[in-house]
């Protein structure tokens, strides 16, 4: 790890100001950034820790029924506090990493990093969530822009994520054997106006919606509705743990299982 300055603001305004400095980097739960720093793979001059900002933590339900989660809320808190309102989302949070990761990692940190194998992007895109920052509101469909790439501007902080609560939803993750990240993860959510299917871990473009499956499931919410569909292997990630063909195959298998689990 290289030396850096650590700033620990207690308000959003202070954090935004601190992030305006050169070479400043936001630090959420640190579950990706700290290992990166330890391996000397990054050298920010200043880290701005968001963990002291109470205003961006917590889970609550809006009057319109949407679930709102503060950007600084840990996975463990979501797993616990969202369970009664959005069990599919809470179960996803409960399956991220291990207890230590869930105790430190935050939803804002995960969405800002947009790791192609992370779980939360599938939930946010699969729910049609709104990413709220200190500056604006961004629809999930506009937010995810490829591997490790998002619509966030430099220094922009995720303060809140708003999830419309579906009638039914489930997440199915097939774990990469070493990292236990999603080799492929599929989030399926059924809303009154249609079904959304979001896939993580599989594509070189990061999280994506499988629109053919959405159309098929919107008219028949059953695993059987997928039987004539297939996912092209083009553009899928190929590595030691999965070829593009294998990942494409898993997308279909896991979508079917997610539908079965949600039904």
């Amino acid at each position, binding site marked *: 790890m290289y030396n850096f300055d650590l700033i620990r603001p207690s308000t959003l305004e202070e954090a935004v100001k601190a992030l305006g400095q050169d070479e400043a980097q936001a630090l959420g739960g640190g579950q990706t950034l700290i290992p990166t720093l330890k391996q000397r793979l990054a050298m920010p001059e200043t880290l701005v820790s968001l963990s002291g900002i109470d205003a961006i933590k917590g889970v609550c339900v809006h009057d319109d029924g949407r679930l709102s989660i503060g950007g600084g809320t840990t996975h463990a808190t979501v797993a616990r506090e969202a369970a009664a309102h959005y069990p599919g989302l809470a179960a996803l949070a409960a399956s991220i990493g291990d207890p230590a990761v869930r105790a430190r990692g935050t939803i804002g940190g995960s969405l800002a990093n947009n790791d192609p194998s992370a779980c939360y992007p599938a939930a946010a895109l699969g729910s049609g969530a709104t990413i709220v920052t200190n500056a604006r509101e961004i629809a999930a469909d506009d937010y995810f822009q490829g591997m490790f790439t998002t619509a966030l501007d430099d220094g922009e902080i995720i303060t809140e994520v708003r999830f419309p609560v579906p009638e039914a939803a489930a997440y199915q993750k097939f774990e990469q*054997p070493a990292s236990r*990240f999603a080799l492929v993860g599929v989030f399926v959510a059924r809303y009154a106006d249609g079904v959304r299917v979001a896939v993580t871990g599989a594509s070189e473009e990061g999280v994506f919606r499988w629109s053919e499956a959405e159309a098929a499931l919107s008219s028949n919410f059953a695993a059987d509705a997928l039987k004539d569909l297939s996912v092209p292997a083009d553009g899928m990630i190929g590595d*030691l743990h999965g070829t593009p063909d294998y990942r494409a195959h898993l997308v279909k298998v896991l979508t079917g299982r997610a539908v079965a689990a949600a039904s």
Partner: protein
Amino acid sequence: MSKFGISQPIKRVEDVRFLNGTGRYMDDTAPEGALRAYVFRSPVAHGEITTLDVADARAADGVHAVLTAAELDAAGVRNQMDAAVVKNRDGSRGAAPPRPILAIDRVRYVGEPVALIVAETLAQAKDAAELIELDVEDLPVWTTLAPGGEAIHPEAPENLAYDWAFGDAEQTEKVFAGAAHRVSLEIDDNRIIVNSMEPRGCWARWDGARMHVSFSGQGVWGLRDQIARNLGLDKGAVHVTTPDVGGGFGMKGFAYPEYFAVAEAARQTGRPVHWMADRSESMLSDNGGRDLVSVAEAAFDEDYKLIGYRVHTTSNLGAYNSGFGQNIQSELALKVLTGTYDVQDVFFAVKGIYTNTVQVDAYRGAGRPEAIYVLERLMDHAARQFGLSPWALRQKNFIPADAFPYVSASGETYDVGDFGRVLSRAEKEADLDGFKARRADSGAAGKLRGIGLCYYIESILGDPSETTKLEFTDTGKVRLYAGTQSNGQGHETVYAQILNEFTGIPMDAVEFVQGDSDLIAKGGGTGGSRSVTTQGTSIKATSSRLIENFTPFVAEELDAAPEEIDFEDGNFHARGTNKFIGLMDAAQAARDKGRDDLLVCEAETKLPGRSYPNGAHVCEVEIDPETGQTEVVRYTVVDDFGVLMNPTLAEGQVHGGVVQGLGQAIMENAAYDADGQLLTGTFMDYAMPRAIDTPFITFHSEPVPSTANPLGMKGCGEAGTVGAMAAVGNAVQDALWDRGIRRVDMPFTPLRVWSWLNRADMAAE
């Protein structure tokens, strides 16, 4: 039988300090004020060094020294590591190219040490390392497990390090030619990274006259001799110690370059120097394990009796000979080549290959798991080809119980065994009868279920001699000096138990001393499942001598003739009287009377023969055909370990061993790309088994006491790994056989299993 003696399931006394954070591992023992060392390693797999400029690093903040081959040379250090070689089949010796401590002119694998930077802090040493200028003119990289490619060493054209063979090729060919049935199978044994929980590390201190090196290892005396030789010191001027060790598994059994460079840095700077590998560094630079491919063939008569066995193996050595690299897949694998089967016409040939990868050497079992894996996969394959029960084929071919002592084709004298009885017990304990129903249940849930058997035998290796010294202290304790080296196995507990059995000395009075070349003159360290058998035998002999030494003194104390003194349950007793004295009290009396000669006792013993633990591992797997995921769902072990010294510890060794074996089988795999870069250099890509990946492992003892040692025991440290790989492999093959899959190789990762199923499905269409 004493409550604390042999065969009691005593809990491990050392676990208290291990679990409450007061263990003393490498980092805990570094001297105050030690400088920190960081190793600058080759970033490329093969090439000539054209520039190595460390001037800026040497001038950096906090830096005390930067060593390269040039500095070692200037200081008169012998820049070379030692290694054994095998004898080729033509009578010549295996290649012995020099392996430097720090690279000389050329680098041959990614991670090879090039320079050692020593600074006040680790961060300063790492900062300085970034200032080193290294230019390497690339040479072609060879990572293929076959002869060929640009020679990595001039001593080994085609990268062939050795060409070793055992047995009568012609006679074996004759048997094969006349056999009623023949089978053949090519079998991969994938490369693993050992990943001991505590990485390697060392520190060194030079006081102007003596060198003290402390390292995380498996025995201190070998390193002492090598440090003395390479640094030009007398053996008496080198003191080597080892604190608590968080796992060795054979990987820590050999010297590594860092230990010599750190010692020399301590001598040059006059300050203690401390080096500890981080995890990524360990994955790059620790000796790897396995990494071989074998073609195995078996010949049977018309009655399916095994009459000939032939194996051709190609073994990856990495870039240089490690300490015992050449011997593992040749001489050590040979020990159990034919396993538990009665077959005498054999031929075993092994080629060792250099590649631009880190060295490969001993890993839990060291050649014996590899040999048993090949044999037991082939026996299973044979049974399937013949349409016979794998269980019945084994029973038919076992060395019969009345044939012991039995000299195997390898020349090993198996002392005792009753393989048929052990296998029958396994059939019952594993509920073989119930498998059909379990398979049907799995099938109803969409899963393919398979059952796999491995009947293994192990040969205990390592130095058969060991010394024990007992010393009564003036604080009422008894110090037990051992020549073995615990790496976490529980030696402190089991040795105190054995001492208690033969002397009655309370377990809590024992102070355990190991891993110190000044305090202990010699020893064999840990390796080859030798520790408890060799040290236990020596403790027994030392105990007898101790009682013998005390008897005349006690006789005088009790007013009796020496021949009237009995010793039982820790007490000397004058026969026919009510006069007795405990050993601890007798020791106090001896001290009071100036008989200090009685307070120390030492004996060395040598085992008359090796023991051969053996047993049956029965594994059941469930495979999800949609994803290729393999889950080990049931695991049963029936072992003949002879007399168990501590059943709990023995079972623990089996559990750990099985998990290492099934880890290799279902997920572990070290992969290099064509440029020799390690693709699995972190736990993000190198899969280690976790508790959730393993079922409950049931362990049963079906003992036939060994006659090759006075304790009747058989070493059990490696047995779990020896049995596990083929048990899992055969279970996976069983699950996939009906889908038309005829060859399966470790690791059984989801991707590989799915690919086999997918290909088989496409072929069927």
